[in-house]
């Protein structure tokens, strides 16, 4: 099964073509550049370099969020349209699980992304028999609270995030020796991991059903609900 995979949920842009557990090609940049301009050329270039056309693919998979609203939408809309137009099955995996997949060992893994105003998108994962299992659902939390919750658990944990350096001080203050640091190069999402994660789940029943996992209401919606007691 040859799968085209896409992750644009953070500043990293990553696309890959994976055949079962063999990565045929992967292209990742970590630049503050526009995903909308660069994603389609990246997909075209990667397929060309791998001597593949869309007809050679068996599925498309995408990191469906959480993350940057715009980034997630660009990746998901591109993957969704490709799958729809080419008649291919579509898989959506958690963007946080893609980060978690970079960790090694059997300890707890807490991937996160900065969600502004002291908040993070985060969750809790662990590898069991080579499979990434979810221990706590993806959620949006005050990073401070979340780290204290991890500390209270008393179990060593690895934190993975493209925003790691910005949060490093708070992490070491709160977790101290409970933190098992990741390698510096493991903080970037890699689209090749999406294939492994997608293989563990079902594709969307209908490609039309694919929507981003924002984990947060649009601000206007949240305010409206607050004002109307909902």
């Amino acid at each position: 099964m040859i799968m085209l995979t896409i992750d644009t949920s953070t500043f990293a842009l990553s696309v890959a073509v994976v055949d079962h557990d063999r990565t045929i090609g992967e292209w990742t940049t970590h630049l503050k550049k526009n995903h909308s301009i660069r994603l389609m050329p990246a997909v075209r270039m990667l397929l060309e370099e791998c001597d593949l056309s869309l007809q050679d693919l068996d599925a498309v998979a995408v990191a469906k969020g959480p993350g940057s609203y715009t980034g997630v939408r660009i990746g998901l809309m591109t993957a969704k349209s490709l799958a729809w137009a080419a008649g291919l099955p579509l898989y959506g995996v958690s963007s946080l699980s893609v980060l978690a997949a970079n960790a090694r060992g059997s300890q707890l893994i807490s991937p996160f992304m900065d969600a502004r105003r002291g908040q993070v998108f985060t969750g809790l994962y662990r590898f069991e028999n080579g499979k990434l299992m979810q221990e706590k659902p993806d959620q949006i939390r005050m990073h401070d609270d979340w780290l204290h919750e991890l500390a209270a658990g008393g179990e060593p944990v690895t934190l993975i995030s493209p925003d790691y350096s910005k949060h490093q001080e708070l992490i070491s203050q709160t977790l101290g020796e409970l933190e098992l640091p990741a390698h510096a190069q493991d903080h970037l999402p890699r689209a090749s991991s999406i294939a492994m994660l997608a293989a563990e789940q079902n594709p969307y029943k209908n490609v039309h059903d694919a929507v981003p996992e924002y984990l947060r209401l649009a601000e206007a919606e949240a305010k409206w609900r607050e004002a109307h007691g909902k």
Partner: protein
Amino acid sequence: MKPNVLLAIETSCDETAAAVIEDGKTIRSSVVASQMESHKRFGGVVPEIASRHHVEVMTIVMEQALEEAGVTPEDLDGVCVTEGPGLVGALLVGVNAAKAAAFAWDVPLIGVHHIAGHIYANHLVEPLEFPLIALVVSGGHTELVYMPEDGVYEKIGETRDDAVGEAYDKVARTIGLPYPGGPHVDKLAAEGTDSLGFPRVRLEADSYDFSFSGLKSAVINTLHNARQKGEEPEQADIAASFQAAAVDVLVEKTMRAVKEHGVSRLVVAGGVAANSGLRQALTEAAEKEDVQLTIPPLSLCTDNAAMIGAAGYVRFRIGQFSDDRLNGVPGLELR
């Protein structure tokens, strides 16, 4: 010869639209999924919510457009999409969907200016003849465009502050009419008289630019002053007086542009082209000056993808394609 069939996509604001257009002039299908209901409670379009809706329904709308047209992807010769202007997040949904579809089907991609689309909506009603003047009036635009020939646009005037549709919505809110206010003001205006003497803002004598913020303030002040005196002016008279002032300026500048550019064809485009006061005044003026006027039916005045296909076909015909780097450009210039 086999006709050219284009799929067109439009997501610049709060309508998710797709259409199939044959040879730039025949509508094979035109699907519009409106989000108006979900923005109503906010009193205006919320960009993030618009973007979220677009992602939800984009592929469904494209599929429906193909089905209603009775075409399969193999029949398509290209994909057109609005690249701007508009809400950036909303534009990005359509642009990325279009890029992916064009790539998957291996057909050319054509980025289209939203205003060019509005102007070419007229081509779907009656073939355009050049040179012409186009008056584009909507919630986001008030522009006068001179077109010496097919696909060539010269913007000769634009609003310096509020778009005329925006002014309509604000006036509607001030007198307590529901969102979107434009059509309500139009309806109410028919029942009132132009008795309040609101200003006609004409700017410099030779300018084709517009300004509606002064008019809007005059309406708000009049109402405010009356209410302070414990009076409530007739709503219908406010609507009629506002509409008369707005329409006067629009018609006067448009007809001056027609005369000074020596054109005999005038087209109107954009959501406010549905306004009955404007339609009537323009029709009368055009008749008097012996100018041929087209105003599209309502379904082609408001945002739709058929118009994007019609405008895109002009570029398709001369091979003016976009590449994979096409982006959503909120402030895209008409060129």
